[in-house]
Each structure stands twice: as C-alpha cells, then as structure tokens.
C-alpha cells in the first residue's frame, strides 16, 4: 500500500496512539492529541484535492469522503475541547493522571477505528473496525470507575457485542449471497465488486442479511428499540466521548447501514430496504421525543435527542430520492456539529455546577451569559429552528416527502414537535429563571463550541456550492 492520504488518515492516528500510550503527563499528551487530530483532518481534506485510487481493502468515493472529513473535523475540535476539559477533571481529582495516558491513546485508537470503518472496501474489514471502535468507547465510558460508569459501560458492552454478532452474521450472509455469483475468496467481500454484481445475488439471502445488518449496525446507530446503551453511555462517560459518540460513532454505523442499503437497492427482487428504515426511524424519533420530558440528567437528555435525530436521518434515507437523501446527509452533518457543540457547552456547565442534574442548574443566562446563550443557541439549532442548519434539512425532509407519504410525515412532524416541546421545557429550567447552584467562572475555551455553532449558523443561510454538488453526487449515489 503506497503512502497516500488514504493510508495517512489511518496511520497518523495509529502511530500517535502508540506514542500517546508511551508518553506521561497530560499537558503534553493533550497537545499531541490535538496535533494528531489536526494532522488527520488535514490529510482528510487533502482527499478532495488528490483522490487516491482505491484498492481491494481501502476505498475512497464521494460518499465516504464526506463522512471522513466530517469525522476528522469533529474529532479535531473535540480533542481541543477535551484538552481543557480533561485538565479540569484532573484538577478536581475526578480522573486519575494514570488514566489520562490511557484516555488519549484510546482516543486515537477510536479515531483510527472510525476512519478505518469509513475507508474499508471490505465488509469484513469494516466490521472489524466497528468492533474495535465499540470496544474502545466501552473502555472510555467506564473510565471514571464509578458504579454508574461501570454499569453503563457494561450495558453498552453487552448490547454492543450482541449487535456486533448480529452484524457479523449479516456480513457472512452477504458473502454467501455473493459467492455463487462472484466466486469464492476475497472478491466476494469487496464493495466495489459487490456493487457491480448485486443485481444477480440471491434475494432471499440478501433480505435475511439486511435484517441482521439493520439490527446489528442499528444498535450502534441507536435506533429504538436497540438504543438502550446510548443514553447511559453518553451520560456516564467523559463529555468529550459523549460528543464523539453522538457526533461520530453513530454516523459511522449509519454509514455502514447506508452501504448495505445501496447494495439491496441494486437488487430488483430483494425487499426494498426503505420501509424498514422508515419504520425504525419514525419509532426512534417519536419515542425519543417522549423520553425528553422526564429526564433529570442533562447529558442523558441530549443523548435522547441524538436518538431522535438519528431517527429523522434514517427516515430521510429510508424515503430515498435525491432531495430526501440530500436532506439526510445535510441533517447528519448539521446534527454532528450541533450536538457536539451542545455537549461542549454541557461539559462546561457540568464542570461549573459540579453536577449533571438539571434540577441543580438554573438561570445560566444570568450567571454565565456566554455559556448560557451558547446553550440556548445550540438547543434552538437542535430543535430545528431557523436560521440554523437543521431547519434547512428538516424543511427539505418534510416538504420533499409529504406529498409521497403524508401520514408517515405527519407522524414525523408530530415527533419533531414533541421533541421541541421537551427540549424547551428543559431549557427553561436550565437557562432561564432564578440562578441555581455554584456560579464560579468557566476556565475553558469556548472556541470549539462557537466554531461549530458558527458553521451551523452559516449553513442555515448559505451552503457553499462545492459542498452542495458533493452532497448531490452522494444523494444520487444513494439512489
């Protein structure tokens, strides 16, 4: 494998992981972490400039380019956020310095795994990568070693493992379906080959395979009723990891799902994957919306909001069509940026207030105007209000599908509305009213948070043509 940008996005994290595992002292490692993440991001961007040719193992096309750049960017900003965050955690002694080395190493491993999953041209390789990503996140969720953290990690681990198992079975079935057509051996697991022959595959096998893949990777996406690990993992893990989980890992799993959807869509006889995705999307959206109301832990609440948005995205892709797919991609991008920004804000808030309980924080816009209004802006964005990006994507999702499936869209709209209610009910408690809890200053930089929000804001008003054409190509690719 020649040393090109493609291997760069894999090697940089891998090497820096080893390096960080070896180095002591969190300040240095934190900086190195940021540096590595930035280099990865830079290499990812360079993919647009020179597109390396994809081999039997690695692959670059319009679809995963979008995902890679998004992933690397958010992981870069998150690493910047985590640098200050972890510093504070060590000061208050919540995190032992010993763990930090481990934490940073794991962070890079996670980046490596996610990038690998995105560039893998081999369904088996992709599966392995996603498994690694899961394991690393399990370890990071449990890093605080509290009852809750361990319990969340354990739950995540068990459910995740089952998911992985199901996904693997699906992968095997795909191979079985491909073998008679393509012949034995590696080729029967290579994307580019699979796609060209998909029409000839045995439909029944494809159907069973898709069911297993949907449930297996759907567990990672956090679709209800497979979502159970997600809220606790978000709530109990360190906040940077919550941001990465919501902003990236869910996308990676979604990416896998989309690949297989394309595969099925190419086969005329096999069942249409759309309706299944639409159904699960709607269930997730409405269910998560209702779950927002009773939440007492702010991070868990936003985790549920992630489930809701994943539901919307899966719905959009399930409906298909150029506009809906475009909307789905846009929504996914906007959600990643917004949700990670919200988690940055929540991290600061939790550190200031010394708790994640919504009841113990209040009147933020009075005590911490910047932070409070930042959170308000984030919630406004995530609730799908203009002039921020998610409004555009929701506009496109709803308006482009309503004339096709009125009743389903009405359910979706219902979910969106319920979710908006829940979010603002909680926001009223957190951001407004009489101040509650400690009002100490925030010693951390707002830059990552507002960088994200600025992008989201700009996207809501103006999308650069390059991005648009890229998305449109992908939308066509997805059919």
């Amino acid at each position, binding site marked *: 494998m020649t040393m090109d940008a493609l291997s760069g996005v894999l090697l940089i994290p891998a090497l820096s992981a080893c390096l960080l595992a070896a180095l002591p002292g969190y300040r240095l490692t934190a900086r190195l972490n940021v540096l590595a993440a930035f280099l990865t991001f830079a290499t990812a961007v360079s993919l647009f400039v020179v597109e390396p040719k994809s081999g039997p193992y690695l692959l670059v096309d319009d679809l995963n380019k979008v995902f890679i750049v998004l992933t690397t960017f958010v992981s870069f900003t998150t690493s910047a956020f985590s640098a200050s965050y972890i510093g504070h955690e060590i000061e208050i002694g919540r995190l032992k310095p010993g763990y930090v080395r481990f934490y940073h190493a794991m962070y890079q491993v996670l980046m490596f795994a996610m990038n690998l999953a995105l560039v893998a041209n081999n369904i*088996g*390789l992709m*599966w*392995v990568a996603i*498994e690694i990503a899961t*394991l690393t996140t399990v370890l990071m969720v449990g890093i605080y070693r509290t*009852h*809750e953290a*361990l*319990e*969340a990690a*354990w739950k995540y*681990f*068990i459910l995740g*493992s*089952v998911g*992985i*198992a199901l996904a*693997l*079975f699906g992968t*095997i*079935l795909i*191979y*079985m*379906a491909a*073998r*008679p057509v393509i012949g*034995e*051996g*590696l080729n*029967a*697991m290579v994307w580019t080959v699979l796609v060209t022959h998909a029409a000839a595959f*045995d439909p*029944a*096998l494809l159907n*069973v395979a898709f069911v297993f893949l949907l449930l297996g990777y759907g567990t990672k996406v956090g679709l209800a009723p497979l979502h159970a690990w997600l809220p*606790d993992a978000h*709530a*109990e893990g360190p906040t940077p990891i919550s941001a990465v989980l919501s902003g990236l890992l869910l996308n990676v799993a979604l990416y896998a799902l989309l690949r297989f959807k394309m595969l099925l869509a190419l086969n005329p006889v096999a069942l249409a994957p759309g309706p299944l995705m639409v159904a699960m999307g709607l269930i997730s959206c409405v269910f998560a919306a209702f779950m927002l109301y009773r*939440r*007492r*832990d702010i991070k*868990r609440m936003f985790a549920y909001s992630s489930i809701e948005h994943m539901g919307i995205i899966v719905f959009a892709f399930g409906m298909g069509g150029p506009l809906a797919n475009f909307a789905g991609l846009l929504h996914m991008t906007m959600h990643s940026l917004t949700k990670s920004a919200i988690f940055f804000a929540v991290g600061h808030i939790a550190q200031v207030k010394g708790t994640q309980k919504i009841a113990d924080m209040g009147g933020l816009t009075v005590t911490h105007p910047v932070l409070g209004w930042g959170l308000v802006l984030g919630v406004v964005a995530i609730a799908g209000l203009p002039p921020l990006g998610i409004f555009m994507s929701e506009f496109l999702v709803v308006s482009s599908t309503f004339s096709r499936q009125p009743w389903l869209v009405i359910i979706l709209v219902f979910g969106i509305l319920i979710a908006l209610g829940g979010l603002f009910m909680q926001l009223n408690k957190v951001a407004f009213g009489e101040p509650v809890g400690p009002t100490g200053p925030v010693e951390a930089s707002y830059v990552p948070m507002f960088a994200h929000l600025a992008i989201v804001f700009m996207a809501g008003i103006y999308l650069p043509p390059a991005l648009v054409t890229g998305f449109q190509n992908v939308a066509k690719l997805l059919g």
Partner: protein
Amino acid sequence: MHGITFDIAHLLAGSLVVMSFVQLYQDRLSALINVFAAHALVLALSVAWQAFVQEAPHLYITAVIALVFKAIVIPVALRRIIVRLGIHREIETVVGVGPAMLLGIGLVALSMVVMLRVTADADPLAREDLAFALSVVLLGLLMMVTRRNAVSQVIGFMSLENGLVLAATGAKGMPLVVEISVAFSVLIAFIVIGIFLFRIRERFDTVDMQAMDRFRGEKR
C-alpha cells in the same frame, strides 16, 4: 461433493443445534458450563471437518481455538468464578424450562423457513449449514434473555458466537474467518474478565444483572 461428507457435516451442524437445546434445558450453572464445553467441542469438530472438506488448512486454527479456548479455558475460568461466588448450585431461570424449549423449537422452525426460501442453487451444504447456524444463533439469544445470571448469559452469548463461527466456516472460501474467530475470542475474554473484575473490585456483591441495575445513573 459426495454424500458422505455432506452427511457428516450435516450431522455435526445438527448436533450443535441439539447441544443448544440441552443448554436451554440445563438450569444449574455447573451443569450448564459442562454442556457448553461439549457445545464448543462439537463446534471444533465441525470446523475441523469443514477444514478437511474444503481443503482449507487455516480453518484448523479456528478449530484449535474453539477447542482450546472455548472448550477448556473458558469453562475452567467460569467454574472458578462461580465457585468463588458460591453460585454453582444456583438454579435460576426467568422462563421455565418447558416454555423455553417450546420457544426454542419455534425459533428453529422459523430459521428453517427463512433459510429454505433461499434458492437451492446456492449449494445445499451452505444452505443447511446456514439454517442450523441461524438456529444456534437464535437459541443463544434466547438463552441470554431467559437467564438472569451473568455467567449463563455469557454462555448464551458464546453459543451464539459458536453459531456464527459455524456459519463462517460453512461459507466456503470466506476470508478473514480466523481473524474473526480470534476477535470474538478476545471479546469473550473481555466479558469474562469483566465479570471477574466486578467480583474482585467488590463493586457488585453478585453478578446478577438486577443487582447491577441498582447503580443505574438515573434513579426512578
């Protein structure tokens, strides 16, 4: 391929399913572990047979892993755990044995129906194997959801995974099988160590999931 090899492969796969049923039938942990060891043994045999049939030497590695790791190491470790926890005589099921068996039969029937829709030109061996593998997988899941004890859940998960390996080896010429089985062994090791850790750190006085749920983040 000629009939006899086919029949043997068939026999082994089938007996794996039977083993899963025996697992479902067991309600004592110690006995359950024994049965699982047998389960792994059968798997090892069937994998080895596949290696022989497909002339794929690398599959022997998988067979060996199954034999050594799953049939010997894990059972021993688990037995030590349950002895330390003093739950080796424990009898615990959520669903009674009878209903569990019935469900199991239903699942096997389901997997048959689903798999036999596959057009026959995919070679019959693969087809049958998949049917059995699917039933083993489903039975493993059933085991996980009908047992309350972490150990028996782990065992359920491992038999599920056995089903996967069966399917993977049955898939003729599938690459990465060895790697996958290794990866899974690592996963299982994690789980076992996890249970062990919880015990040693005295975080959980029992490995019963309900006890663990007491430490849920958000109390009612």
